[in-house]
């Protein structure tokens, strides 16, 4: 396959699908399998870009989460079980803290419960980490619908300003030494903050002037009526979504308020976006194409999520006193997630350019 970077949106849908699968089970075998799938795809398809080097950090974070989860259960344990690993001395607590047990016997249910829970969180973290590693976050922002272009630009500019701010703090701190300034506390903060803020303000104004001179925000051709129509669409969509979500979450509300209103809200909002996007006259340089490989990737993510979610309760939520069971269909469902590692084109590298 010709090396090229996959559409960042495809990677995100795939990763969120895997994360959804992970969130609907506590079966440790399935969770470990999901983690392995995510790692395998990352290793196979990550680029040499700076953001791709962060996956190790996600691995550390995931490990830490599992550890904390188990420790937490050991400290605040107290789930009765026939198997007790260690008898720790229990710390007596006053009356108000009734129901909370500090230390005491460490049971199998404590440790396994913490482990399963931690694994689930770890799997979700790693899925999001995988998406971040595989897809350039800035390119994802560039793929936003035209109506959200302004917001996307603001985020990109903010992201590039961060290193500049750090640099400016360093510069001012060094300069402060040259003046011999013994102020502490608030006075000292002020001596750093004032020049840094002035610097940041100058840069922002400068950038704004530059963007203005390069045509940012050139007026589209929308008439007042079109603009109002867009506004009505978006507002109605927002209200529809609010009502729908309320209906979904409140079990006592009439069912007619739930899914129908969510659907209506989404429809109106999409209409608003399309109408807003139509009056933006802007083109995109080298847009990421959407090809079969992207479709396959997205399908794999969604399929894995759907199939794991429909797995039987015994498989998805095994009891803590028996060895968790797995079924062949569920295993295969998770394994679907690994397909993108083989069917997507490899990313571009220095050598293939």
């Amino acid at each position, binding site marked *: 396959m010709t090396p090229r970077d996959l559409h960042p949106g495809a990677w995100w849908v795939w990763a969120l699908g895997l994360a959804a699968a992970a969130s609907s089970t506590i079966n440790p075998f399935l969770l470990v399998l999901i983690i392995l799938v995510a790692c395998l795809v990352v290793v196979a398809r990550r680029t040499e870009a700076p953001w791709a080097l962060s996956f190790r950090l996600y691995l550390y974070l995931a490990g830490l989460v599992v550890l904390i989860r188990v420790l937490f259960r050991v400290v605040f344990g107290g789930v009765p079980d026939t198997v007790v690993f260690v008898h720790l001395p229990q710390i007596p607590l006053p009356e108000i803290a009734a129901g909370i047990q500090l230390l005491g016997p460490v049971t199998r249910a404590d440790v396994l419960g913490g482990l399963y829970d931690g694994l689930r969180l770890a799997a979700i973290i790693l899925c999001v980490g995988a998406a971040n590693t595989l897809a350039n976050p800035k390119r994802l922002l560039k793929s936003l619908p035209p109506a959200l272009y302004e917001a996307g630009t603001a985020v990109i500019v903010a992201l590039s300003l961060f290193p500049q701010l750090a640099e400016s703090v360093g510069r001012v701190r060094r300069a402060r030494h040259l003046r011999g300034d013994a102020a502490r506390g608030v006075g000292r903060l002020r001596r750093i903050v004032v020049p840094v803020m002035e610097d940041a303000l100058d840069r922002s104004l400068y950038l704004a002037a530059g963007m203005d001179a390069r045509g940012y925000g050139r007026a589209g051709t929308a008439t007042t009526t079109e603009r109002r129509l867009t506004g009505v669409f978006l507002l109605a969509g927002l209200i529809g979504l609010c009502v729908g979500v309320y209906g979904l979450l409140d079990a006592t509300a009439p069912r007619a308020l739930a899914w129908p209103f969510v659907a209506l809200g989404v429809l109106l909002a999409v209409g608003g976006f399309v109408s807003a996007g139509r009056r933006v006259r*802007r083109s*995109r340089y080298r*847009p990421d194409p959407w090809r079969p490989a992207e479709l396959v990737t997205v399908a794999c993510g969604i399929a894995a999520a759907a199939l794991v979610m429909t797995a039987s309760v015994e498989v998805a939520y095994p009891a803590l006193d028996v060895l968790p069971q797995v079924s062949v269909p569920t295993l295969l469902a998770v394994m679907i997630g690994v397909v993108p590692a083989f069917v997507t084109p490899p990313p571009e590298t220095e050598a293939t350019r």
Partner: protein
Amino acid sequence: MIELTSVTFTHADADAPVLRGVDLRIDEGELVLVAGRTGSGKSTLLGTLNGLTPHFTGGTMSGDVVVDGRSVRDHTPRDLADLVGYVGQDPLAGFVTDVVEDELAYGMEQLGIDPQTMRRRVEETLDLLGIADLRRRALRTLSGGQQQRVAVGSVLTMHPRVLVLDEPTSALDPTAAEEVLGTLARLVDDLGLTVVLAEHRMERVIPFADRLVLVEGGTVRSGDPRDLLRDSPVAPPLVELGRLLEWDPLPVSVREARRAARGLDLPSPQEPERATPTSLLTARGITVTYGSTVAVREVDLDVPSGRVVALMGRNGSGKSSLLWAIQGSGRRASGRVDIDGTDPKNGSPAHARELVGLVPQTAADLLYLESVASECAAADHQAGAEAGTCRGLLDRFAPGVPDERHPRDLSEGQRLALVLAIVLTSSPRVVALDEPTRGLDYPGKERLAEVLRTLAAGGHGVVLATHDVEFVASVADDAVVMSEGEVVSRGTAARVLAESPAFAPQVTKVLGPEWLTVDTVREALE
């Protein structure tokens, strides 16, 4: 192409207008240099060409500016983006994206140009500017000259008819500046672009310019450079030389001057009287590293009392790192510095300041109070000096700076004088300055040169990092040239400057190695 009719512009809070009844006509395919003293309104004038003044800056404007039939009265900068390409002073601060290729495409995306055309224009522009190998590089990792060329490219892709540049080479070393100016001259030749640029270091641009626009006291004069330079308040050394020797026509390039100088019989130059150097600061084996990058490698440096030492070299050759290292507050991996038997690194920061005072490149970083008076008072207090010391120094360097003025409202030269005064309040033995001539016009530089000479005559040692060759020629006794963190040549300024083609001042190029500045010629003639 561009027509200004009785343009008058007043800043929002100002009493008097910056520009008064300006009439100006610029034809298609001209390279126009806008020159004038600092604060004369050059940037304001450039801003009017694409409507940044007054649409973005605010203020009141009367009169009209018409570019290719479009008036800025009813077109905002973004509406003129396809016609006027504007590149500001600091290219890095103006970048919107973070990769070269995306930056080139940004403007076209705003104009809604179709993807095929965009792709083609990006490739053409990369080739035109000779930056094709940089296409995927992060903008922050580029050198100053490369950044400036990318900034030019990022507006060229919109195919503007006019290119407006505000001080495109002021932060660049001589070689990088040549690169950028050569590129601009090619654009005028090949594409018939109209280029309007402001520049303090006129000596670099004058040979390329078809027309000179002088901004003085709110009015402009425009015409052939040779005619206008006769009595211009700002003039490059070459023109000063021509005026002194009464050459007619005035030479604007070194080649013309050489031809005029043929057969010229000058008495031999007087040896300038300079104090005999007594050792003051000796630095040995200074090494500065950032991670695995070596910024300065085992450099020795001597700054004797009574002498001015210039550090020269490309952008990023380690000049600043060396200055910070000898001051004591910067990084130093190894090496030692000796001033009267003490190393500034070992003592307290207060003691280090009494040994070496450093004026950093962005001098404004040292200022954080609301008025000149409170800055001076704070400096006296911090240095434990008598009240009024700092103010006294400031009056010596830049007389008449109002006490209540906010430091940010000072001119470039006044702000530098204030920071220099603050640094000198602790009466350091050695004064170090990092790129002090940035943003100064010729008279401003002369003033600074006088101040530095006075300091040296008073027994201080002065060391400055700069790539302003003409300034070094006028002020320095010794010069050290650095490259890649190492010293490649050192000696008296006259010898070092004369033997390098990149660093030779204009007068040397014309009259030979024994002449450095117009002043030496003037003295010899008297």
